[in-house]
């Protein structure tokens, strides 16, 4: 097998150099105003809500004390009997697990679940690491308290978003991800899973959730 130095040397020679660069190259300047499609001055929650709806997700903006009730309504309406949640200060502060259990829904937190067990649950209810106004995206990072499967395996994904989570643009999101580099993985979610592989026909719900519902908290919750 080829080793690292031979591999890199081949490339270096292809570029007409015999030695490594002595200083870091200067990549093209990334001027925010040239890249951003949404500026920080805009009404970010409104823009976000509009884009969420445009990408086949539902969105409701409401005060924190109504979220649990609305989520329970939604789950009942969809005939969901069970749900998986991450270990989340936000979701805990909303008293979500207790409320769901009282309502007869088998709600389980990630610390008492295995990844495989999530396959048998009806819904995943998560917080987000960030949200993007430009694209209406939900950004989720994997860490020990938040498994990758929670927003992926169940047919219904419900996300609770605070206005303070919203960044204007993908460009700002990347800056944020760069700053909080602790997570082992990041996913930017923009709508329910879909395909149009069969003759261009749109089908919703392929391997991931077929429904994504966003609850946007009207005012930031103090944790």
């Amino acid at each position: 097998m080829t080793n690292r130095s031979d591999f890199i040397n081949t490339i270096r020679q292809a570029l007409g150099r015999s030695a490594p660069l002595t200083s870091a190259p200067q990549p093209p300047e990334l001027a925010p105003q040239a890249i951003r499609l949404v500026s920080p001055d805009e009404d970010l929650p409104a823009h976000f809500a509009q884009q969420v709806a445009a990408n086949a997700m539902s969105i409701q903006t409401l005060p924190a004390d109504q979220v649990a009730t609305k989520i329970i309504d939604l789950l009942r309406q969809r005939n969901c009997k069970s749900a998986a949640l991450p270990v989340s200060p936000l979701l805990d502060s909303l008293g979500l697990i207790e409320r769901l259990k009282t309502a007869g829904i088998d709600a389980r937190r990630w610390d008492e679940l295995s990844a495989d067990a999530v396959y048998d649950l009806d819904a995943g209810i998560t917080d987000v690491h960030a949200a993007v106004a430009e694209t209406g995206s939900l950004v989720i990072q994997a860490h020990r308290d938040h498994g990758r499967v929670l927003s992926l395996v169940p047919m219904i994904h419900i996300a609770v978003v605070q206005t303070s989570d919203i960044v204007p643009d993908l460009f700002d999101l990347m800056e944020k991800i760069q700053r909080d580099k602790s997570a082992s993985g990041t996913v930017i979610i923009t709508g329910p899973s879909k395909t149009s592989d069969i003759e261009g026909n749109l089908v919703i719900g392929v391997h991931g959730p077929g429904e994504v519902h966003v609850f946007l908290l009207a005012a930031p919750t103090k944790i």
Partner: protein
Amino acid sequence: MADLLARNPGDHHPIPSRRAPAPHAQTSSFNFKVLSTQAAADENLKRTVGAATVKQWTSRQVSLRQLPDASALRHLAGRIKQHTLDHLDYYLEQLIDNVERRGGKVHFARNGGEALQIIAAIARENDCKICVKSKSMVSEEIELTPVLEQQGMQVWETDLGEFIVQVNHDKPSHLVQPIIHMSRRQIAPLLCDYFKTDYTDDPQTLTRHARQFLRDKFRQADLGITGGNFLVAQTGQVCIATNEGNGRLTTSMPRVLVSLVGLEKVVPRLGDLSVLLKLLARSSTGQAITVYTSLFGGTRAAGEKDGPEQFHLVLLDNGRSEILAGDYRQTLRCIRCAACLNACPVYRVIGGHSYGSVYPGPIGALITPLFRGLHEYNDLPQASSLCGACAEACPVEIDIPQHLVNLRRDIHQKKISSMGERLIYRLWAASLRSPLLYRWSGRAQKWALRLRARFSGGWLKKLPGPAGGWTQVRDMPQPAAHTFHELWKKRKK
């Protein structure tokens, strides 16, 4: 269909294998003229491919127009990719260091054979039995699946289109929509037979069957294989963009994860990624961004209950460093969005299989000869009318028509084209260089053609040699009695 129905012991469903590819998939003794002529005569194919490409291309047009300054963003994207290629040794070193810092292992494959050995060894050493793959053109390039199957593994394509390709022992014919060449009526019986369900051609139902079937595979799989849309040097991460969610499952469930990526996929920073992501999906399907954009690399952290326990990044050269060294470096900017395929009037008529490689369309006509040799693929650079639609569509400003012209020049200079062709061009060039020769040869042609047309009412019904293609479907009027030069001289007096 016969071997499709042959059951594998211990498995309810037959395991599709690619050991018996469809006739068009065989690339040895590639004959573009035969393949493209057959394809162009297939009305069904033309209708299916034509409709799908026009739809995607239209969405792309609408979507790019929504950007305040699409051409400035494309220019920036092109500069980012070009800068990275020009300093690729530096950024690859940075990437490798950062992947290792995340607990991943980086492997180096000079060619497809080495990549196959590396991945087969990872699977063997970890005793992997079931592999789930998300869509990867590079794995098609090196023909990975048969090698893993030969060592007794089950390998499942999990992108719906790629899954259908696998079940059909076919090859993808488009970079983004692998089964763009198939109609719903062709897909339905295939999948219903495979899943042993009642016949339906409802895409929703067929997709639901595939979801259920592949869910079990994801749940059991111990090896995941992905490609990569981008590699971020600054963070040591792979970025993949998908719509179905199979890419997320592939990177979340199996304990061993391998990403096989071409070395040209590097970008320096996350900020660069934001620029390219704004263009990738828009150019490809017209979406602002794909449903899932995943950034991963390295192993799961302490205390995590999902994500891979091992992460391997296999960097593939396979001819790329040679392209980097020559006049065609710019072609390595390609982000495989397929905008040039959708825009191309030739691709729309002949489909992807005619190009004889996993990379079809204008970009394929360009990089396939570079990857696999100009000798065997010398017809591909001619498979273009040089109309420029591909260059106009490219989000990273690759000047595809110019490079195709340069390849044609190379074919001539390396004496790959036939003696007769070279003779004709030499004569033509000589006559263009000398006014006297030009006039004489023009007069001789005029005389000969008018003589020929005299007995068929002033029309040429059949031209000799390669010119015969023109008169196959139409007549040609005879040349005028006097040339432009003659008329000019006369009227000046």
